[in-house]
């Protein structure tokens, strides 16, 4: 009976460890988005101060947005309802869809933390953009530490 009980507890423990890993990865992603967003806003403000004003309105895209990218040779057949509430796109080639947080990461707005490549200077800036209690997670990310496939307790966070 005791052995059986221990097996139960061990299984519950393993499940909990898996959940904790996923939640830590989710928390890391939330922090990346927060850093990327704040960094973007700061960059825009600095640019506007340098250029004495915002860029032309038709050259800026407000968040949130999506992008669909495809080869230039792709032919896109597009149907639009008169009220612009419905669109139908037919591509003759593959395409990719990305949301704004992915675009910001590709723009380097999260200092390359998601790839574990971050300079000391950028790490300091990134830490200043998140609550103090969460700086440990940023340190882990900068060291290339991703929760999804790591052991549980080996991190500063």
């Amino acid at each position, binding site marked *: 009976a005791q052995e059986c009980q221990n097996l139960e507890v061990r299984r519950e423990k393993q499940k909990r460890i898996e959940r904790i890993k996923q939640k*830590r990865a989710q928390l890391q992603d939330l922090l990346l988005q927060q850093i990327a967003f704040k960094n973007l806003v700061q960059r825009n403000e600095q640019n*506007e101060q340098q250029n004495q004003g915002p860029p032309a309105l038709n050259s800026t895209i407000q*968040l949130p947005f999506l992008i669909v990218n495809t080869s230039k040779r792709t032919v896109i057949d597009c149907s639009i309802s008169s009220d612009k509430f419905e669109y139908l796109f037919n591509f003759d080639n593959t395409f990719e869809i990305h949301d704004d947080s992915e675009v*910001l990461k590709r*723009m380097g707005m999260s200092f390359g933390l998601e790839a574990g490549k971050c300079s000391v200077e950028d790490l300091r800036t990134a830490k200043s953009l998140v609550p103090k209690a969460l700086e440990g997670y940023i340190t882990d990310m900068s060291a290339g530490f991703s929760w999804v496939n790591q052991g549980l307790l080996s991190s500063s966070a």
Partner: protein
Amino acid sequence: RHWLLEKELQELQAAEQQLDELIQMCTVQLRLLTEDPANQQYPLVGGQDGAGWAYVTCQDLRSVVDPSEEMVMVVKAPPETLLQVSDPEEAFQVSLRSTQGPIDVFLCPED
């Protein structure tokens, strides 16, 4: 052994609960940040942290693709717009359906 297992389980329980609280806190912070009116309009003079406005430029979008090879279509949709991608073996088809307002779609200019 059983006592030790139970103790470890309780520690994991506490760790998971702390993570739930941190995730909740960060989710709220991100929402406040992204929905903060100051980030939607022109920067407030001497605004709070996060003032300014949240946009990318066409130049930014061109920097994440290869503009000589790729074209980028930008979709600005109201909340709860449904995007459906059909089975690629039938067709490379994307449909957008909004219930709260018109959808804006435009190609990012090449230059």
